[in-house]
């Protein structure tokens, strides 16, 4: 007879990079389901302020740059005092890239790595230390990208960080021995992001080449993040691609 005890659903979730897009959609979805949610971004947007007014007891938002280790750690302690120990973490904060590697400055490469890889690893470490130190279980969801698994021009450093986070997801899941479930969601390109750099014809062409016929939206990704945080699935150490089959 196994003494396996499942990891309970997350009750206090911290989402980084929640000012807009996927991060904001994850925050709104979890609050709707009665989960206590803390979130930070460089700027607390009107959308986040609206959610804070709607859920005054369950939401706690702050203005923090994810690369500011001290500020992020102070925010975690603030959340703990206000909502309870964080037992769910969504590493979503990231910066993008649209430049060929040979024409990307070394400073910009360092900035992408610091924001997209170092910062989430450091934040995860801090949250886990507080969780494990209290004898609790939890869940981590890393938002990576299809770029971590497939090659795309103009995204070399960005892809390296997302692939790195996918790799860390697997190793962390192994290291934490089932006490904390660690997974990643790897979305395809969001139409909203791509529209900034591609024309309408190119977007239509990408959608046509995608088996589902549509590019990914934040709303497509939210249910999987919710499942990984709240459902009993035994999924652990996985990077789940959500791209309409565009990469198959």
């Amino acid at each position, binding site marked *: 007879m196994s003494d396996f005890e499942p990891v309970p659903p997350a009750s206090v979730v911290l989402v980084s990079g929640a000012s807009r897009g996927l991060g904001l959609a994850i925050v709104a979805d979890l609050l709707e389901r009665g989960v206590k949610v803390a979130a930070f971004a460089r700027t607390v947007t009107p959308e986040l302020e609206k959610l804070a007014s709607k859920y005054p007891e369950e939401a706690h938002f702050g203005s923090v740059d994810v690369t500011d280790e001290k500020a992020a750690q102070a925010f975690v302690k603030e959340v703990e005092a206000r909502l309870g120990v964080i037992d769910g973490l969504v590493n979503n904060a990231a910066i993008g890239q*649209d*430049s*060929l590697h*040979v*024409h*990307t*400055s070394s400073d*910009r490469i360092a900035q992408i790595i610091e924001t997209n890889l170092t910062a989430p690893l450091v934040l995860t470490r801090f949250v886990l230390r507080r969780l494990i130190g209290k004898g609790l279980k939890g869940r981590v969801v890393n938002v990576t990208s299809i770029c971590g698994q497939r090659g795309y*021009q*103009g995204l070399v450093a960005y892809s390296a960080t997302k692939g790195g986070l996918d790799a860390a997801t697997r190793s962390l899941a192994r290291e934490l021995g089932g006490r904390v479930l660690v997974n990643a969601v790897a979305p395809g390109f969001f139409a909203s992001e791509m529209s900034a*750099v*591609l024309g309408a014809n190119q977007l239509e062409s990408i959608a046509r080449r995608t088996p589902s016929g549509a590019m990914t939206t934040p709303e497509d990704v939210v249910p999987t993040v919710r499942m990984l945080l709240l459902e009993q699935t035994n999924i652990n150490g996985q990077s789940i691609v959500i791209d309409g089959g565009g990469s198959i």
Partner: protein
Amino acid sequence: METLDRPAIRKLMGEVLAVQGKTLPADDAAKLADIGFRSLDFSELALRVEDEIGDELNFEAAGLRSIETIGDVLDLLVEIQGQ
């Protein structure tokens, strides 16, 4: 920062094409697709300009997507040097 003017960049562009056995047309309106000047050729040209001016030219890829003619290439490289 030292900069290269359009004629100097044009000369370098001709050298990039010459290595591939191609000739740079005199007309700035000539299409890149017609002369076989691809994005990596643009990178090579930009790196040659860097060598001449002794400084790095780092830029977003968005500008590259809209270049269609020889004139576009020259305009973009002049613009990038000015940033």
